């Protein structure tokens, strides 16, 4: 008799079930696709800081100063592969080495040469030199162009007793020298000169009217004269605010959309998983309790269920989000308040069946408490179903968060995909053709929804038809 064989001590039933489950799951192709996407989403969350160029995107999404060096409404950098003209991408040059020259006890001359290889057709939007300092110094930037022309771009004094940021936008600071440089070649009545267009253009008579790109190595000579002994300068860098920027471009507030998208992944997972975990747990327990007690308790609980099931969620969410300060937590709580109805009916019908099992009767005969019967004998049998139900609930939680955010009622301290879409709508992204602002978050929402829907369907196919009681 096989049952007489000594069972291995280590073989647990749970493990066996999991192996069984996995073997069946492997058969379902879309389930595997779902798992792959889920793993990707989790990896993205884990390695977020390695994936995004702006590590504080999540916390400083609405901080204008954090994004100020980026171009506005710039398309993604990879459109260069498809367009005839090459656009300058946003470039950060921050490995700047200074050569120190002590001139007197109080004065020190620091010089550095930043070489920039320009090989594009469309010049950057702006050039920014920035850093942090304490004390006082004079900043002088001289540009040596590939054709040998030398321009003195910036002369500026800074002084502050405490730590402060300095930021020089060459596009505005160097208007005069650049204008006079251009006028040498083309006498034009044009008053406003686009600094960067001139800087990166060939020195000929169309420098203003039709600038031709001058490709080659540009040398920015930065001279800093510290005028007091205790002056310290940190994190100097030159930013070329490009005509194209990053992996997914920027929005109208100069924010890097790729960073927002990646930083939003964890919030999508968090909102989706937490909401569905809480609401399914509540729903399953509600259903079991309702079925277990039966009679009048069941009737009352089912009527309450019907009320909640028939309240349209979105209008309520909008009103509540408008009344209370919208935060991620209040949003999750409100969604849980309405999402728990999902599994109740199915769970109740399953529990009605389990309730009649002899082992439940046996537990009653032993004098087991109601809580013990519910949580030790009934709920564990519903766990497989609960997991499938949770997976199926995740997309709707994400979608509802996105909907509420799209309406401008999201949590203002984080960045979610719905909020990016909301900003895009407000910024007229669609009418202005800023597709990189609209399409990626839309796809991301669809993908994460698909991921969990696939996993949920796959689990459902395996677990739902049979009440795996033995």
């Amino acid at each position: 008799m096989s049952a007489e064989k000594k069972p291995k001590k280590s073989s647990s039933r749970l493990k066996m079930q999991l192996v069984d489950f996995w073997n069946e799951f492997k058969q379902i192709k879309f389930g595997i696709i779902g798992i792959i996407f889920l793993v990707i989403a989790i990896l993205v969350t884990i390695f977020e800081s390695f994936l995004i160029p702006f590590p504080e995107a999540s916390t400083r999404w609405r901080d204008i100063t954090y994004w100020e060096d980026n171009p506005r409404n710039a398309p993604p950098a990879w459109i260069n592969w498809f367009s005839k003209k090459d656009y300058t991408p946003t470039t950060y040059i921050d490995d700047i080495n200074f050569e120190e020259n002590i001139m007197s006890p109080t004065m020190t001359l620091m010089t550095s040469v930043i070489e920039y290889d320009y090989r594009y057709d469309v010049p950057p939007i702006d050039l920014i030199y920035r850093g942090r300092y304490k004390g006082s110094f004079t900043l002088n930037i001289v540009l040596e162009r590939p054709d040998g022309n030398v321009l003195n771009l910036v002369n500026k004094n800074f002084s502050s007793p405490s730590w402060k940021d300095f930021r020089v936008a060459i596009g505005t600071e160097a208007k005069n020298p650049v204008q006079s440089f251009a006028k040498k070649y083309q006498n034009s009545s044009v008053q406003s000169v686009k600094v960067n267009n001139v800087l990166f253009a060939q020195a000929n008579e169309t420098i203003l009217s039709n600038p031709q790109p001058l490709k080659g190595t540009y040398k920015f000579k930065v001279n800093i004269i510290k005028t007091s002994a205790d002056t310290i300068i940190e994190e100097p860098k030159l930013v070329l605010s490009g005509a194209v920027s990053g992996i997914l471009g920027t929005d109208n507030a100069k924010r890097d959309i790729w960073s927002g998208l990646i930083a939003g992944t964890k919030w999508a997972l968090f909102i989706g998983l937490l909401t569905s975990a809480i609401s399914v747990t509540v729903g399953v327990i509600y259903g079991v309790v309702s079925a277990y007690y039966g009679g009048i308790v069941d009737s009352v609980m089912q009527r309450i269920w019907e009320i909640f099931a028939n309240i349209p969620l979105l209008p309520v969410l909008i009103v509540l989000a408008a009344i209370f300060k919208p935060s991620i937590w209040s949003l999750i709580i409100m969604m849980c308040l309405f999402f728990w109805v999902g599994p109740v009916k199915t769970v109740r019908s399953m529990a009605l069946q389990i309730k009649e099992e002899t082992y439940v009767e046996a537990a009653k005969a032993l004098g087991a408490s109601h809580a013990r019967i519910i949580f030790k004998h009934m709920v564990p049998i519903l766990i497989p179903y609960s997991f499938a139900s949770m997976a199926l609930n995740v997309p709707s939680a994400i979608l509802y968060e996105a909907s509420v955010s799209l309406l401008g009622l999201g949590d203002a301290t984080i960045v979610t995909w719905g909020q990016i879409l909301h900003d895009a709508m407000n910024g007229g992204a669609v009418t202005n053709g800023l597709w990189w602002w609209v399409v990626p978050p839309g796809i991301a929402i669809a993908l994460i929804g698909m991921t969990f829907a696939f996993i949920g369907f796959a689990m459902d196919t395996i677990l739902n038809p049979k009440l795996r009681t033995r």
Partner: protein
Amino acid sequence: MNDEIILSVKNLKKWFPLRRSIAEVFKGKRKWVKAVDGISFDIKKGEIFALIGESGCGKTTTGRLIMKLEELTAGQIIFKGVDISSLSSAKDIKKYKEDVQMVFQDPYASMNPRFRVRDVLYEPLIIHEKTKNHAEMEQLAVKALEEVKLTPPDEFLDRFPHMLSGGQRQRVATARTLVLSPDLIIADEPVSMIDLSTRAEILHMMKEVQERLNLTYLYITHDLSTARYFCDRIAVMYLGRIVELGTSDEIIENPLHPYTKALIAAVPEPIAGKENIIKDIPIKGEIPSASNIPQGCRFHTRCLYAKPICYESDNDPELEENSNDGHYVACYLHKEIN
């Protein structure tokens, strides 16, 4: 065996209400399924008492009423001098459920498939807060498994029910009742779903345990042959009432009620040369519905001996002692028939 009465059932009734139409609700009519309709018996300490009857006769309901799995409609169940239907505090009910245990019919369903044998045996200890110490629990569980001859116990402790045979499961179910050292065990058809070859073994084990631990059994069955082997006294039930009660030998050798006679005649005899003979069973028709019980003696519709007194009287015949030998029968005509 002594004469101390451990459980006394007096005029026990369980009527289940039937769903009514609206017209009936307005007329105030109530319809009932009279599953148990006024039964009385005493069980002495240390005996094995059998309730026998065909399916639907109310024997399982009686067991469930005694186990407090159902609320009784009328009557009394007195256990060790206390009317258990009047127990109201949860503590008293719990104490009662410690003293009275039940073995269920289906050994495949009576254990949670997710529980190991260990968990099954620990459950009563946890519920009744006997001990929190795992070593002690294991000791008690091992002892119970030894009682039911599942040896070596260590091999069985970590198995799941689905890894056991039907006989082994019923042994575990019996062990579960034993860990709390109860006084009365209600065995609801414990061997009816077990292979014939293992039945005798299980019954033998149960009897041994009963003798060794001086337990009392209420054995609920439809199977006369096991009842005779196993029980001291037998009560025969028909449609919610006891029709005959006596020692098992008396009932089998000298049945007085026509229904008992029919039951005994219906037992197949596996004797060579006789297997093809269909016996003339002294009964007619089908069992009536418990919601529509015939007037008078409720057996008259199927009785071959029925006379006007049987269906003209307003009540069922009472159980009366035949000749001062502890053999009771409920039949108007039993003196004439026998």
